């Protein structure tokens, strides 16, 4: 009868090197995730998502699905622990980031007291485009909330609380800034009038539909967390045909929708928000594109990360 060899795991603090926990009789086929759960039992405030365990204090953090017996440790392992700070699940993160702009814009749209001159409190704008912009902006964020709750499938990843607060400050602050001007009593409607608004609206609607189609299509890929067996491809839905040209058409459509909103409102803060978003999304798209080309040998050469033929 073969004897199972048990592992001993010692967990030290990365900075002070003092021993925080000693686990004996650990099954060899345990994963790093199992060890984190065991560690959590001794230190209830450090739930697994907050733990970073490393083989070397300055090395890379181990993944939850790494198995103890596959690590270069022998039967007695020493792991170094670092606290990543309070964490939020992705769903919570996105809900927080999207609810803010939605509600804040409405505060400005209804001209709640103390924002504008008191004689304009709770009045409404005489321009049609202001009502339309409110509808579009609100639709955009309601759609995003809907997708966060019903469409996207997130890995079990989390985001540090501090980073979430920083992101929220950015989105909420920018929403307040652009809503201030669009709903201002001295707002100037677009220079080319109804034509400009009409075409901008068409761009906006098409891009929102495209963005949703792409999210839906990404949802139907059979993925386990971050690893996918296939890369995304165009389907029967014409909006997904952008996959022929770009790796991340969801970002392309997102930029397009904001370009539409910028043209519709003819407002510099909106254009600035669009521009900064474009820069950030291009960085993300380039990263995603690199991951795809690395993981799939048959990835089409023709595709660019975010802009067809260009970027």
């Amino acid at each position: 009868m073969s004897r199972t060899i048990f592992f001993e795991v010692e967990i030290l603090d990365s900075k002070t090197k003092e021993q925080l926990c000693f686990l004996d009789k650990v099954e060899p086929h345990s994963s790093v995730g199992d060890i984190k759960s065991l560690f959590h039992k001794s230190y209830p405030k450090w739930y697994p998502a907050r733990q970073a365990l490393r083989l070397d204090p300055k090395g890379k953090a181990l993944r939850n699905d790494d198995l103890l017996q596959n690590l270069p440790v022998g039967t007695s392992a020493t792991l170094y622990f670092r606290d990543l700070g309070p964490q939020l699940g992705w769903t919570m993160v996105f809900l927080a980031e999207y609810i803010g702009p939605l509600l804040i814009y409405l505060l400005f749209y209804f001209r709640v007291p103390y924002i504008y001159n008191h004689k304009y409190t709770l009045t409404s704008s005489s321009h049609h485009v202001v009502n339309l912009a409110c509808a579009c902006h609100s639709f955009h964020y309601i759609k995003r909330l809907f997708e966060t709750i019903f469409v996207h499938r997130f890995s079990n990843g989390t985001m540090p609380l501090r980073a979430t607060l920083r992101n929220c400050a950015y989105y909420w602050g920018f929403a307040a800034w652009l809503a201030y001007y669009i709903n201002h009593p001295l707002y100037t409607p677009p220079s080319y009038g109804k034509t400009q608004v009409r075409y901008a609206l068409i761009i906006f609607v098409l891009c929102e539909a495209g963005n949703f189609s792409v999210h839906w299509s990404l949802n139907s890929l059979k993925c386990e967390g971050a690893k996918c067996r296939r890369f995304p491809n165009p389907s029967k839905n014409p909006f997904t045909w952008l996959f022929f040209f770009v790796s991340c058409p969801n970002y392309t459509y997102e930029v397009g929708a904001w370009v539409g909103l910028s043209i519709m409102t003819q407002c510099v803060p909106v254009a600035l928000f669009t521009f900064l978003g474009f820069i950030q999304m291009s960085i993300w798209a380039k990263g995603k594109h690199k991951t795809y080309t690395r993981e799939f040998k048959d990835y089409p050469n023709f595709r660019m990360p975010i802009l067809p033929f260009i970027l």
Partner: protein
Amino acid sequence: MASGEEDGTVEEKETNNKKRTKGAIATAWLTFYNIAMTAGWLVLAVAMVRYYLQKGTHKGLYRNIARTLKFFQTFALLEVGHCAIGIVRTSVIVTGVQVCSRIFMVWFVTNSIRQNEESVILFVVVWTITEITRYSFYTFNLLNHLPYFIKWARYNMFIVMYPLGVIGELLTIHASLPYVRRSGMYSLRLPNKYNVSFDYYYFLIIVMLSYIPLFPQLYFHMLRQRRRVLHGEIVVEKDE
């Protein structure tokens, strides 16, 4: 097969040679740049001393040296480029913030506003002393002949110079506020077809407030560097 291996080593030698040439060109350029900047700020220092000795007062001194100051301070933009292409190993952002704040002071605050002379002289004198020390430190470092007193100066004078410079800059911006408010300069009011507004007065107040988080970060960064550089020396001496 054998010739394939030889080609490999030849290629390696070529890239190594290219790296060495690039390194030599970078060092030569940086040495020239730092010598030029040291000289420039020395010229400024001499001009200021001469003016004061000749006129006996500091009134009108800033107007006298303003052009030279603007020239050499603007030239420092190149340092951001040095970090960006990697020939200087400092963060682009840190250098960018420092250079931008200097350019902002010189082109957007003192350039356009009639000034209270004392605070302007304060920060210009501080800048001159700091920059001469800094650029001569870099120069001697690149030439591998660093006199101890320059190293001492670079890592100790900032302890007093930095806060003095900040006080001078903040007093200057504060003194400019009434004038900015009255003239409405650099400001854009509603309504306009871009649907945006900009109030330079409030912008200056935000700039002043931003010193509160930024200054301690830069100051403690320098203190940490000082401890690392000078403390390392003490350890070496003990071994001897």
